[in-house]
């Protein structure tokens, strides 16, 4: 088995140099890590599992990668090899990302982006890598299903001043402030996405479409007390029936508060802010508007 492992590792190396990632991964996955004959230490097993998962990920093969990352997750708790642990975390985040578990992926990318050390083992962690992880965290959060959890992660990212330097910041700001996103902004954001994040869903829309429609719907629910599906469809750029279907799903999943009057084809938005608190918020808006008028008058010398 020893010789077989060495040959497999050599062959895998050759496949890797030729960028035949899956072949390299298959070659390595043929090594029997659980055989009773050889005593293999956990770190060696962990490094192989992570390496195989990483290779499958190079070919966007999340299914096989996940098999090995799951094996690795039993070994990583006992590992003290920080470089290997970091690689495991990166693989795990990428697998979650590819399996469209965007919120979990975002949290892991964000955790990776917060690494303080600049050298782990023989690996140098440069600012670009951290910025990439941060940007990936923002992208995944924006793609995640709109709702309270996503809002919490958005708030964390928005308050992290490193994000303000990211190219993606303008869209993060609009999403966090629950403003409606226009088509040009969505298209610009789409260019930054990876292939799997543009994949088509069963209903023939993309992950991004769904995320953006849900986001805009949630934003509309903050703006309007109620709205007809005709107008809502126009606002979202989709058919009224589709707007109704998405709205009803979000209400059922408790990601948006409201009720639908199907006879009138109108949706009535609700929010659990008490009337008296809403009153105070309206007063804040009023006072700010008054303050702005006074400032403008002062500027005009009136």
């Amino acid at each position, binding site marked *: 088995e020893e010789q077989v492992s060495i040959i497999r590792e050599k062959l895998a190396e050759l496949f890797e140099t030729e960028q035949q990632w899956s072949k390299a991964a298959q070659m390595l996955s043929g090594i029997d890590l659980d055989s009773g004959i050889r005593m293999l230490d956990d770190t060696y097993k962990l490094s192989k599992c992570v390496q195989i998962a990483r290779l499958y990920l190079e070919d966007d093969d999340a299914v096989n990668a996940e098999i090995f990352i799951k094996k690795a997750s039993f070994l990583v708790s006992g590992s003290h090899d920080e470089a290997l642990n970091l690689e495991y975390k990166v693989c795990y985040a990428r697998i979650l990302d590819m399996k469209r578990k965007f919120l979990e992926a975002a949290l892991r990318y964000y955790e990776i982006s917060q690494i303080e050390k600049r050298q782990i083992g023989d690996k140098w962690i440069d600012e670009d890598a951290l910025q990439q992880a941060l940007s990936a965290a923002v992208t995944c959060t924006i793609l995640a299903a709109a709702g309270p959890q996503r809002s919490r992660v958005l708030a964390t990212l928005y308050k992290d001043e490193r994000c303000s330097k990211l190219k993606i910041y303008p869209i993060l700001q609009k999403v966090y402030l629950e403003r409606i996103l226009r088509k040009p902004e969505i298209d610009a954001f789409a260019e930054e996405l990876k292939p799997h994040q543009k994949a088509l869903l069963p209903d023939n829309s993309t992950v991004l479409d769904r995320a953006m429609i849900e986001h805009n719907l949630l934003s509309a629910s903050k703006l309007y007390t109620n709205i007809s599906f005709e107008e809502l469809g126009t606002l979202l750029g989709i058919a009224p029936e589709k707007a109704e279907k998405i709205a009803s799903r979000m209400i059922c999943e408790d990601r948006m508060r409201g009720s639908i009057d199907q006879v009138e084809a109108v949706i009535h938005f609700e929010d659990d802010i*008490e009337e*008296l*608190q809403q*009153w*105070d*918020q*309206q*007063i*804040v808006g*009023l*006072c*700010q508007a008054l*303050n702005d008028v006074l400032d403008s008058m002062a500027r005009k010398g009136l």
Partner: protein
Amino acid sequence: ESDSIYYYDEVTQKKIQQDKPWARDPHYFKKVKISALALLKMVVHSRSGGTIEVMGLMQGKTDGDTIIVMDAFALPVEGTETRVNAQADAYEYMVDYAQTNKQVGRLENVIGWYHSHPGYGCWLSGIDVNTQMLNQQFQEPFLAVVIDPTRTVSAGKVEIGAFRTYPQGYKPPDEPVSEYQTIPLNKIEDFGVHCKHYYALDITYFKSSLDSHLLDLLWNKYWVNTLSSSPLLGNRDYVAGQISDLAEKLEQAESQLAHSRVGSFLVPPQRKKEEESQLAKITKDSSKITVEQVHGLMSQVIKDILFNSVHQ
């Protein structure tokens, strides 16, 4: 001129430290000056703890019989009232913080500690008295500050108290009555047993020219917040707690009155006086709560007239 207080004269402070005037007079320190920065940080930290007590340290210096608090910082400690010597959890942090301060040229030493009493007023409990006595033995000059973030919201001003303990066994002269405050029934015992072991200092505040400039810039935030806040809304739980505490006190007073009614002519005048003072306190508590509520209602009515009575 107003910023001169921010200058730290190391020689003078060292000399005061050597003289130790406080060692000869248990009542030596009588006044406290707190900087706007330290006050804001302590109030914000106390409010962030919600109903959990939090604690922190204050940095500053002394000037005659006045303790001057320049800055404050939170300690990674919670639940101070339920733990003896809570700050033990933070010794390492305190040492690191003090050292780092010196490195960056902040010369003020730790001058005291603060902690919060959410909803039950500013005084020293038994644990607080012990902690402060210990500090006054080994870390003089040292001040204890207590903040009640809940009552701060309700009263619309910062509920804060600054205290110094007397040495063990010292009999203080009769105290001038400090401002009345409601003590919850479940804390009255703790309050009563120790209230003679410490005294309150007069608190004043100061701010730098920069603070004044910044606060002026934030002026519109201030009046907008004043007009758009509803003390009645924000403090419901606290008020409900206050009323239930009042009810318990009434029941207790009533049951005692009931006993004494049996042999009312036998009740010594002293006892009668005591009951009246107890009832008087309860009456005072109830009118205090009600006044705060009526104030809250007045602001709601004014807001209603201001913002809801104009129609297109």
